């Protein structure tokens, strides 16, 4: 994949000939490579412009004035969305959530971030680029807005960090002891699946192999999350050390950070830091420990596909294949990257590891709830005063949390992203914890101005776009649900359509291969349950005629053709 990135960056697209050449080099068929290239939306098949602009399609961006921003760009560069200027200078494209939900409207230009855009600022950016400035020279540095953390004795992530201090535990404990500690801490995966981390490491540790891998999942694709971005900016050391502990525990000698392309601007800094660790002997050969070991980390850049956050898809992607999830009969801890035992962990999970060791398992267990000890990072965006990152102790009451954000007049909260849970007033007395309201990290708040169906349509578009396409319930089921939402929005739907949505969602949920299909209809069904009146309002009365069929529309094309023909030649 890095070869493809080189070509994409240099030539701004991957041509037929390039694909032929590359496929020969890697001894694969050209069509197989084309399959890989066309899977990822940041690889282009035609020139995407010397300066490629990506604008976020997510609702949060739309409600922050995305449309005005798009118009401003279109005016400044003179072409419409999805097109490239004639001189191939600029290309303007859409992209799903770019992980800057707290700084929207935002965009990426050549993968450099530009935040808090205004039409005026856009004019300025474009003219500076026209005058020869490079994107990285004028881009913004996304601020890490940490809105809340518990009192200092309870903060886990965002507190001062002492370089290398915790690494001394390597000398004190052997791998089994570290796994034991992590198991005892009840740390569970923060990527959304909440699998117990200690157990995962244990499995991988027990599988004997000549080579094992640690992969950090920094693909953070769930719309509305940006907690991993902030961790990578603020405390990348924690991540590296977390990976070192993981490697030591399971016996892996190679680590990889799968960094989503949207965060490419963080790559250089991370690489610098990795070099420093190498220089200081904390990475590389014979790392000082009770049982000395070899371990090094490299960065693998994604190329745009939400599904690559799913761990098996991520592994396929790293192997240079299409990012399709596997069937679930074998887990990566047994047969993962290159068919070797592999641990895939989220950024936040790995960052928690050195902190737990540092503060001691008991003080960690004292925080949070019984099932989910410790703290959790939430990315808050949408209609509230204080957007940004919240480090909260598990178990916080939803109302208390809402008060912190300063949100008012709330209609609903999308908890844990579009594939998570949609909350309404009745849920606000619940607690944020593993026992009650589980959360992966994304919190999107919507107030009463917002149109529920518009939001749901946006989610649905996202899932249609991001389905990997391997199984029919998700591939076409989501597409058909999307059409149903359209029907509702246009006021053509009847009661039967609501029943269809319920039935179809259930089929998609139970028969899809991976988490994307299984959870894609969650919010739609939550919404139908929690806001039945909104749906009812949109229904038209039951008839025997399908209102979605519009005869006038259906003959428009014919009329145009005949009109054209009956206009006599000059």
């Amino acid at each position, binding site marked *: 994949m890095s070869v493809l990135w080189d070509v994409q960056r240099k030539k701004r697209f991957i041509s037929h000939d390039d694909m032929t050449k590359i496929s020969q080099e890697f*001894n*694969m*068929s*050209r*069509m*197989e490579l*084309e*399959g890989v290239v*066309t*899977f990822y939306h940041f690889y282009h098949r035609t020139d995407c412009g010397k300066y490629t602009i990506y604008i976020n399609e997510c609702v949060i961006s739309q409600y922050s004035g995305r449309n005005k921003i798009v118009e401003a760009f279109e005016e400044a560069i003179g072409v419409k969305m999805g097109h490239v200027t004639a001189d191939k200078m600029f290309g303007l494209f859409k992209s799903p959530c770019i992980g800057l939900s707290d700084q929207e409207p935002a965009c990426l230009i050549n993968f450099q971030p530009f935040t808090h855009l205004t039409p005026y600022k856009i004019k300025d950016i474009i003219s500076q680029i026209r005058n020869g400035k490079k994107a990285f020279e004028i881009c913004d540095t996304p601020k890490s807005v940490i809105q809340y953390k518990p009192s200092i004795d309870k903060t886990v992530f965002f507190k001062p960090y002492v370089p290398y201090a915790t690494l001394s535990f390597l000398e004190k404990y052997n791998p089994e002891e570290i796994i034991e500690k992590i198991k005892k801490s009840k740390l569970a995966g923060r990527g959304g699946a909440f699998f117990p981390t200690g157990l995962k490491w244990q499995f991988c540790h027990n599988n004997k192999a000549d080579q094992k891998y640690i992969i950090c999942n920094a693909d953070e694709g769930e719309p509305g999350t940006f907690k991993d971005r902030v961790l990578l900016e603020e405390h990348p050391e924690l991540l590296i050390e977390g990976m070192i502990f993981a490697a030591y525990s399971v016996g892996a000698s190679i680590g990889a950070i799968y960094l989503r392309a949207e965060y490419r601007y963080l790559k250089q800094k991370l690489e610098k830091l990795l070099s420093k660790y190498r220089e200081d002997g904390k990475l590389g050969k014979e790392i000082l420990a009770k049982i000395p070991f070899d371990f090094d980390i490299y960065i693998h850049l994604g190329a745009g*596909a939400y*599904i690559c956050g799913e761990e098996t898809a991520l592994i396929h992607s790293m192997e240079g294949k*299409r990012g*399709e999830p596997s*069937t*679930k*009969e074998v887990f990566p801890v047994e047969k993962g990257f290159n068919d070797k035992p592999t641990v895939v962990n989220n950024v936040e999970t790995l960052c928690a590891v050195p902190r737990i060791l540092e503060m001691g398992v008991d003080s960690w267990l004292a925080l949070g709830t019984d099932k989910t000890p410790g703290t959790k990072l939430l990315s808050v965006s949408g209609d509230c005063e204080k957007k940004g990152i919240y480090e909260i102790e598990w178990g916080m009451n939803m109302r208390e949390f809402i008060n912190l954000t300063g949100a008012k007049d709330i209609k609903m909260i999308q908890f844990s992203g579009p594939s998570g849970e949609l909350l309404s007033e009745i849920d606000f007395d619940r607690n944020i914890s593993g026992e009650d309201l589980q959360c992966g990290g994304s919190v999107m708040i919507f107030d009463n101005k917002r149109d529920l169906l518009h939001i749901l349509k946006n989610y649905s578009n996202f899932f*249609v*776009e*991001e*389905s*990997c*396409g*391997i*199984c*029919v*319930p998700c*591939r*076409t*089921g989501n*597409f*058909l649900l999307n*059409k149903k939402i359209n029907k509702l929005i246009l006021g053509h739907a009847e009661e039967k359509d609501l029943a*269809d949505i319920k039935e*179809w969602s259930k*089929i998609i949920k*139970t*028969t*899809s*291969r991976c988490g994307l299909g299984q959870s894609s209809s969650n919010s739609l069904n939550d919404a139908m349950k929690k806001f039945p009146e909104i749906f009812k309002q949109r229904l038209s009365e039951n*008839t*025997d*005629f*399908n209102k*979605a*069929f519009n*005869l006038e*529309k*259906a*003959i*428009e*094309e*014919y*009329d145009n*053709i*005949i009109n054209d*023909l*009956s206009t006599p030649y000059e």
Partner: protein
Amino acid sequence: MNNKVKLTIDGKSIKAEAGKNLVDVAKENKIFIPTLCYFKELNPLGTCRICTVKLNGKHTTGCTVKVSEGMNIEVNTPELLDNRKAIIEMLYAEGNHFCPTCEKSGNCDMQNHAYDMGITVTRYPHVFSDKIVDFTPKRMIMETNRCILCKRCVEEIKTRDGKDVFSFVERGVRTRVHIDYEQEAKLSEAEALHAMNICPVGAILIKGVAHEQPFGERKYDVLGKDIIPSLKNGKIKKEDHEKFIVATTSLAGCFGCHMSLLDIDTDLLDMLEIVEFNKSPFTDIKKFSKRCHIGLIEGGCANTENVHVLREFRKKCDILIGFGECAIMGGIPAMRNFISLKECLEESYLNGTTSEIGADIIPAHEDLPKLLNNVYPCNEVVKIDYYIPGCPPNAEHIWKVVKSILLGEKFSITHDEFKYD
């Protein structure tokens, strides 16, 4: 023999070899788990999802389960049966499947499943997406309209130097299988045939080889079970001395279905004892003269007149039955849905091989109905109560359904009557 394990499938307790594939174990015990992508030589692919079962209460695909001690598996619960049916229906809605013109008809795994499940219509609207038919490869034709993306060919067919011949490209709803021409040329005749044979539908064809088996000898010609159609509630109300009133029409169809209606020969006379035809090509009654119990619709909607007639039928008939593929999903006329209307008209009237040299008129007149942009299945215009599949449907089948609706009695439709390819 200590590697035997005990498990239950649908309440039946079964002994099997540990680690054996569930689909095979079930089959040995006469429990059939339908599959499309699974075939023995390959690792289970788990792409088609129709073998979805419940393992200890959780949904998973049967083909990826290796049996172990104590497993409790559900295969044929109403929910799972409906899921399977739904997936096949979704595959039909997603692709462009015109069985009457398909070389693989009768040898098609998916068609056979559809027969077995008694599918008459898909619950999903047809997507009618534009997909290519690729004639370029040396030996093969890739009919992506029919491809269900089971991935068999992608995984199985490789050149001798280990390269893929078939590959998935794009993602989401746009995902397709494409052929690599260079690699395809390297395949031997036998390897190419193998590719066609493992395709569970009619997406991979070998030039000059299709249609080899005569009717009656194809893979699925003799298999199959009878079907008892289920009636929706609501018996037809009428006075005892009155006859049932039936209307029929042919919209964008070929009248083949109407011909089939006549095919019950002299039974038609018995039929007329209880049935009276109102508006119908049989009677040449042009306008409804009274309200009808049943309206039989042949053909889909291709022009404005079709739409008006269909709407009129909906208003005047208690029950509408769509009979024949065209009424159900647009049928052969709907093949134009992938070509722009302009091209269709130009080909028909200006540039086609049968149009006169110098032809420059596309007929258009206020008295002529206008063509719609697409051919629409009837249920996308009005509500249709029952469907009788077939191209054309078997005469016995049609009348059994009609009688069954009129008299509220149940009939069993034999596999032969239901099957129409």
